[in-house]
């Protein structure tokens, strides 16, 4: 079972790699829309990548209003 720290770290690694942002530039409290410079379609892409990576289903209403990596990690953690 992953810890919340591990889950958050994996999300940050995945986001950095896919959206080509230096991993060191990302922190758990960051607003990922702003930090990654993504729109809603890219946010859906991130959601899909996270579902595929963690092997979970994350209904989009559960991430409604979520914009920081840490809260995103708690939503995923609840389904692991």
């Amino acid at each position, binding site marked *: 079972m992953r810890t919340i720290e591990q889950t958050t770290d994996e999300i940050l690694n995945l986001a950095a790699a896919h959206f080509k942002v230096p991993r060191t530039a990302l922190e758990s409290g960051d607003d990922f829309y702003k930090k990654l410079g993504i729109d809603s379609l890219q946010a*859906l892409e991130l959601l*899909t990548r996270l579902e595929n990576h963690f092997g979970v289903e994350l209904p989009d209403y559960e991430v409604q209003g979520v914009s920081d990596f840490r809260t995103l990690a708690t939503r995923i953690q609840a389904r692991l």
Partner: protein
Amino acid sequence: MDEHKGKSLSWRTAEGVIELALNRAPANEIGLAMLEDLERFTSSLPALESKASALILYSEQKAGFSAGADLRELYAEAQKMEKSLALKGVREFLERIHAVLNRIDTSPLTTIAAVHGVCFGGGFELALTCDLIVADKMARFCFPELRLGLVPGFGGIPRLKRDIGNAVVRDLLLTGRSINATKALAVGLASQVAAEGEALRVARSTAAQVTKFDRATSAAAKRFIKPLPAEELRREIDLFCELFTRPAVMEGLRKFVEDKGAHPYLP
């Protein structure tokens, strides 16, 4: 090789397979331009069908297969006219798009949707006309219409009900959530999942297999197992039009159209 290029899509036929490529930026929104091109395609289908066994639908837009109906166009058109005329226009559009989608649905060809990225609303409804859906692992399927105070209007629910269990139909319709390719495969919506960027290649491989069979036998098998839910499709148009006149719908459309933030495709 036969080829045709329209404003928002193109098609070509080679080795018994027709490929229909959607290509209207940003995400193949289905408005009047796409409808007219689809009507040209279905008008050409009788001649194309005589030379082919399979039809592949796919998108050349990076964002995905299709984000659905062109809500910006719908809102702009509805704003120009008084309510009864707007409703008349909506009904006419729905009648035309249903005619096109029913024609693809009942084509004697074996039809395959190669889906990547967003496959939402009307785009999902277009994919559902196909006999097989090959989903890229990054594909997402969704009926977001309830967020706007509407139901899907291009025949999506009757077609989805024809294919999969009611529990999933209700989940998709009543929560407006999107599902990924793995889930789509698990519930029987997609027949195959492809690696990222590989859905078209897998669809082509599937189409090549289809061309090995006697076309009349394939067509007979399809007619036998895939009836058109005609009565429900008609009732869906009536229900959509009934809901469309409510003020909440225009307000929902206005919010979507005027949303300058990053969220219009999220619930």
